């Protein structure tokens, strides 16, 4: 691995060296490194590009890293990764993609991730997307994240895209069985002429399911963001959608949350707000000794924290 690779891995997965435990590193559409653990087995698919990750029932306090890096211009990488998480697991999964495009052609990675989370299992999933490079070629990331939660299962799904991605179309779908819980957090920052679209469908099929969707975004310069988070309740359940965006410069944001109740005991709430940074917030931080620029950055950092 070269310095660009290690920098990308640091940005997307906070890795400074090969991770402990199970991992699968993909670079420019090819396997770069893999390790299995006693409870986590990663296998290449034979019918299409991608991997199957099998996590044995009752696996606890283990993690698996599956970062992807793209450093060549002109690459279009499509990958299908399926996660089979056994009952009663308690695991962390760290994914993410970093693109370094120093050429004039488009570099694109489309990751289709599907999770089958067993009964009473608990998963924390973090997916970070990042782009860089001095080339004129586009950096495109189109992730799909599909999650099926069995009874009593729990997922904390966190997706982050901070800077450098010219275009993204994200799709997230979560289906919850009885007693399952999902917290879906999305943090997004666009700048320049970037475009981001995020569509989410969270469907609570079972009694006692709970979900919380939190979307926080910052659109700067001429960038455009569109959000379609939808929470559906088909049983007695509770769902909350909260979308907050900060708009700056000449950016444009559309936030279109939806809640759909198909059962009289489905309690669903949505909130959406778009606004600029409040002037009194900047003034307050300036009275603490920050410059106007430092104050603005601190507010954005906190908002996306």
């Amino acid at each position, binding site marked *: 691995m070269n310095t660009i690779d290690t920098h990308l891995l640091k940005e997307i997965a906070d890795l400074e060296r090969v991770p402990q435990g199970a991992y699968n590193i993909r670079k420019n559409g090819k396997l770069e490194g893999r390790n299995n653990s006693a409870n986590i087995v990663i296998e290449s698919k034979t019918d299409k590009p991608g991997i199957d990750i099998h996590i044995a029932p009752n696996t606890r306090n283990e993690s698996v890293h599956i970062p992807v890096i793209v450093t060549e211009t002109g690459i279009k990488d499509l990958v299908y990764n399926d996660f089979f998480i056994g009952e009663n697991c308690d695991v962390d999964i760290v994914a993410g993609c970093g693109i370094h495009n120093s050429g004039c052609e488009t570099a694109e990675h489309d990751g289709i991730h599907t999770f089958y989370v067993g009964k009473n299992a608990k998963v924390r999933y973090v997916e970070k997307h990042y782009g860089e490079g001095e080339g004129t070629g586009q950096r495109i990331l189109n992730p799909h994240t599909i999650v099926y939660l069995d009874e009593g299962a729990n997922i904390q799904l966190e997706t982050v895209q901070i800077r450098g991605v010219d275009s993204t179309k994200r799709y997230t779908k979560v289906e919850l069985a009885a007693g399952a819980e999902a917290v879906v957090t999305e943090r997004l920052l666009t700048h320049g002429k970037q475009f981001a679209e995020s569509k989410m469908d969270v469907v609570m099929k079972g009694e006692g399911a709970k979900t919380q969707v939190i979307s926080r975004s910052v659109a700067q310069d001429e960038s455009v963001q569109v959000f379609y988070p939808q929470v559906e309740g088909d049983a007695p359940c509770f769902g909350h959608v909260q979308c*907050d965006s900060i708009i700056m410069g000449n950016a444009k944001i559309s936030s279109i949350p939806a809640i759909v109740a198909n059962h009289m005991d489905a309690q669903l709430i949505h909130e959406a707000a778009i606004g600029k940074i409040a002037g009194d917030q900047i003034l307050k931080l*300036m*009275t*603490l000794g920050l410059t106007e620029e430092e104050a603005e950055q601190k*507010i954005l950092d906190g908002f996306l924290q």
Partner: protein
Amino acid sequence: MLELKHLAYSVDGEGANLDILKDVSLTVKDGTFLVITGPNGGGKTTLAKTIMGLNQPTGGEIWWNGEDITHLSITERARRGISYGFQQPPRFKGLRVRDLLALASGNPALSHAEGCQLLTQVGLCAADYIDREMDTSLSGGEVKRIEIATILARKSPLMIFDEPEAGIDLWSFARLTETFRYIHDKREATIIIISHQERIINLADEIVMVADGVITDQGPKDELFPKILANTQSQCEFVRKGELA
């Protein structure tokens, strides 16, 4: 030492200049506890904001420790040791109470214990608040007390508070007045408080009355406070008699 020399502040109001502050001159010696009081709309908050740099004066000068700071930015004044507690402080989605206190103190590594100590000084049960987000989950009174804690965290030589009592319950207010008394007793800072509260006015060394954009009276608390109370009582009696008639 803080010196205001012929300070003026005007805004455009329907084609004519509206004078909010008119020729305000005042000297505040180091370590003084000064209360600025007076009727609503008299210019007290404008005066305090102008000292902090939140308003640029349209006339006059502001000197701090021998330096003309009239045209310095808010940031520069803050870095020279002036702090200001807002009457209606903002909330910050995503920033935790601990983050804000760390920023205020200038110490990114502000310890949990130090943060909690600051919150305790403003009557908040520290452990319940230190990791809370500065968002709408906090009540107005809680945000106000955290705001005051940020000023205490700065340990500035000049602390300005704009109606610190507003929105704060009686019990927390009692704790707060003790904190002001403690800071003053140690002469750790010059304190300027805009207030209408008798308990705060009672802490003062000096009182300045501001009405209609000018200083109408000023002097030691022991001289001026009885006059203010007498005036207030006579006004109350006048109103009461009018109602009875």
